[in-house]
């Protein structure tokens, strides 16, 4: 069970990280990045670090994402090539 969970999570981590890199729409990239952070949160919760998991969920996924949103609203949403 644990191994299955690990395998799924680790795959998800790599998938989200690569999608952040590939997304052209910056808003989408930020949303995927928060998904990446949240996946990380689950992994840490699972591995005996609930404090870190909560902080990452609140600060890493929450506050950081909001700050990115504001910046995108004030700058641009498309990544040019």
């Amino acid at each position, binding site marked *: 069970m644990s191994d299955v969970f690990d395998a799924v999570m680790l795959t998800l981590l790599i998938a989200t990280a690569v999608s952040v890199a590939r997304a052209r729409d910056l808003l989408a990239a930020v949303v995927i990045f928060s998904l990446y952070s949240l996946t990380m949160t689950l992994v840490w919760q699972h591995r005996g670090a609930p*404090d870190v998991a909560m*902080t990452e969920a609140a*600060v890493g996924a929450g*506050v950081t994402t909001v700050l990115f949103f504001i910046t995108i609203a004030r*700058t*641009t949403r498309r990544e040019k090539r």
Partner: protein
Amino acid sequence: MKAWSLLLVLLVALPLVVGVVNLPTHDAPDAPIHTGVGVRYLERGVEETGNKNLVTAVLLNYRGFDTFFEVIVIFTALAAVLALPRGSAARPGGFPEEAAHEADGAGGRPAEAAREANGAGVPVSPVVSYVVRLMAPFMAMFALAMLFRGHVTPGGGFQAAAVFAAIFIALGLVLGPARVAELVPDDWRPWLQGAAPLAFALIAAIGWRLTGAFLGFPTDDHTAQEAMGLFLEVGIALGGGVILARLFLEMET
């Protein structure tokens, strides 16, 4: 460009991989990390600090000095954002230093136009507004629970700070940043945003008086210890929350 980037990444990756695969296996109970200084924290942490949550014990007691400067780091972020020039129009009369550099710096496209094109500033739907205002007190209670139970359960000052900031930010999105900024009176603001470092400095001085060591906690008096710890947590939650919220407000306006 792409190829060079890949090459650089590989160049960095190789030594890192060599480094990590040669570390002791991380799960093993006899790894140095589980036989080093951590042993004492696990064995005597509760007795020495009164915190059942040893992460809190490490953060506030054993390595409180790190946490002191961690809250200084987020204060630095706020000072940094406040020190940056604001607005997009060049100041009439100008500052020579700036002008000398940037006289030829391409008259920027007005930011406002870009903003409208992105659809920012669209009014929030009434349902969202209602839900946010309804949720705010509950979120605040959740934050307080985290704050005051941080020594026995996961959570603590920083997590509470982030939730407090989230409340501010959510309200800011619904009511507009100006209304939220009014929640904190101008006279209090400089004190509140420095609450965390100031709490640390105060506790450090008190600890100095009580135990003779900077930031020392009286290990034999659990009540005093708990009170000091709680004071720090409240300071962190308050100061951290105000700073994170202020960062949002400064960037929004």
